[in-house]
């Protein structure tokens, strides 16, 4: 049975395996055991409500196969993007260069360096065993975070953003980076990406060009990569779009990948979720639902069949109830798969 729960230190080896084996990049999941360990620690302190972490709470969840105890995926939430540091993006914009005398008006695309997404809630650190990409576990892992946000709404911002991985060649080069960032950072994409995972973001402030960039001066390949998701991210994009996410004006400063954004209270998982009272007993047939129980450290989310009537009570079979830590009378959150 698949279950999503907060990451613990025992998960370190499993998470590290995912972080390093993973072909696609996840800069918020650093490829360093120490940094991963810090990340788990940070998540646990955030869950415990450590007041020292106000405004920089970060949560990390894992997808566990409860039959084997193995970790098959990770998903994270940064309560405030940037974690009290600036969060960098480019914003796509257009200027009109016009001359009345020459009767010309031309649209000029520009990228503005910006911090304006700083402080919004960020979904991040998503990795999953490639074999599970097309299964319901993928959806469970991604959407369970939204149910967590719903259960702890006051900890999160009114807006949620997600950075989608941008275009890369088979060799691992990013055309957007090669045409822009490389000139200023004097390092290849993989190195910059590594640093952004393990270093503070200070180096970005120090090295990023401070002035707007005219898109027309970038290479054709770089221009084509602006706001274009990596092929491997297609499924993630589809899922997020169903949740109500839209492509924003913002892009990643490294690979030019799109930033998706949504209003927290308008996310499908949140508007359609229902609160029910649990009753342990016989399982029901019904249809597939995400079911979440517990708060903070005890948050659990899984998939099960529920025949959801009009009543306030929902029946769960004992196996899943045990996995979710459900006692009779607990408040559950449900949303259809």
């Amino acid at each position, binding site marked *: 049975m698949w279950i999503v729960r907060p990451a613990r230190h025992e998960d370190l080896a499993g998470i590290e395996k995912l972080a390093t084996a993973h072909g696609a990049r996840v800069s918020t999941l650093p490829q360093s055991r120490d940094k991963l360990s810090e990340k788990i620690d940070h998540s646990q302190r955030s869950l415990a409500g450590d007041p020292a972490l106000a405004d920089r709470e970060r949560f990390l969840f894992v997808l566990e196969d409860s039959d084997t105890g193995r970790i098959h995926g990770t998903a994270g939430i940064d309560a405030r993007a940037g974690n009290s540091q600036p969060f960098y993006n480019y914003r796509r914009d257009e200027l009109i260069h*016009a001359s009345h005398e020459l009767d010309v008006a031309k649209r000029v695309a520009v990228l503005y360096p910006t911090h304006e997404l700083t402080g919004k809630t960020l979904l991040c650190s998503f990795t999953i065993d490639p074999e599970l990409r097309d299964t319901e576990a993928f959806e469970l892992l991604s959407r369970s975070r939204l149910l967590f946000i719903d259960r702890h709404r006051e900890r999160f911002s009114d807006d949620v953003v997600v950075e989608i991985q941008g275009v890369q060649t088979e060799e691992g080069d990013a055309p957007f980076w090669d045409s822009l960032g490389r*000139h*200023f950072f004097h390092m290849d994409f993989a190195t910059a990406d590594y640093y952004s995972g393990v270093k503070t973001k*200070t180096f970005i402030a*120090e090295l990023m060009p401070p002035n707007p960039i*005219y898109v027309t*001066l970038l290479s054709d390949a770089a221009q084509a990569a602006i706001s274009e998701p990596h092929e491997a991210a297609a499924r993630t994009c589809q899922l997020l779009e169903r949740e109500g996410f839209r492509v924003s004006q913002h892009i990643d400063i490294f690979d030019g990948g799109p930033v998706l954004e949504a209003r927290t209270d308008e996310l499908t998982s949140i508007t359609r979720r229902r609160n029910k009272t649990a009753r342990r007993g016989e399982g029901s047939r019904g249809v597939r639902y995400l079911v979440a129980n517990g708060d903070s450290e005890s948050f659990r989310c899984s998939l099960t069949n529920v025949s959801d009537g009009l009543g306030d009570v929902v029946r769960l079979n004992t196996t899943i109830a045990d996995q979710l830590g459900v006692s009779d009378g607990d408040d559950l959150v449900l949303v259809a798969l």
Partner: protein
Amino acid sequence: MLLIRPLNQGDLEDLHDMAEGAGKGLTSLPPNRDLLSRKIARAEDTFNERCAPEAGMYLFALEDTEQKKCVGISGIEARVGLDEVWYNYRLSTTVNASRELGVHVRTPTLHLTNDMTDTSEICSLLLSDTHRQGGNGLLLSRCRFLYMADFREFFSEKVFAEMRGVSDENGRSPLWDALGRRFFDMDFSEADFLSGMGNKSFIAELMPKYPIYVPLLPEPARAVIGEVHDNTKPALRMLQAEGFNFNGLCDIFDGGPVVEAFIHNVRTARESVKRHVLVSRQPVNLDVPPEERVMVSNRSFRDFRVTTLPKSCIKPDTVSMPAEVADALQVSSGDLVRLSPLKENRTAK
């Protein structure tokens, strides 16, 4: 004899022929009779004090007195950027450094500026192919510094020249193709022509206002920033010998450099001396090499005249000259003239 004098409407056809022969790249003088005629009219207004001398356009003709023909022109714009907006790029450096990562990156950056506003520009130098020898180019260019030396109050302390940038035989400019053209769908030669017609500031309004990071430009464009056209190299060397230096600015279209100097440091002005004219009946061999000649200016605002004499004519208090030269300069014995070497004496340095 070759004589510098104010340009007038009688020179229109000669000027048109020269402009036509000059081809692409001479922004300030397109072969267009209306425009050239307007320019001449403006110069005439300036010399005749029908406009403020500080706002004047001083255009000088090089006349071949035997042929009675204008064979070259040069000019001074007393102030640029007062009616329209004068644009240049400043080639400056942006440094980004991260101590933590041990990275220190210098990025050449072009900033759009109006820094030359309210400054005097020497411009519009054009010499007919038939007369490119014997120091005629030097006379045509340097006579302007003699003029400025006598009328300093009408010009700014600093004087500059925009040098023609790199373009190929088809009139294509690598910088324009990589930069200007991206913002303004037009060939360089066409944009250049429009500039000459007085539309440069309109085009400039369509150009990018934010700084341009030079590494984002292709190599051929980067290579021509601050570089002059091969045909302009002699003119650049001549100005460098006068004390002009690249000031970090360049043309927004073709990247040609701006060179500048303070007028009191310009060699022709600095080394000039005044002498009283002594009209002499002794024959003088005027046909000596440029190194052995001096320019002689009559110091007249309205009827400025300059020609050259052998250095041997200079005496402690006077300069002697044959009557024909005195007539050409419109001076007589006792008048005070200004003298300066036509060509720097390399061996003396």
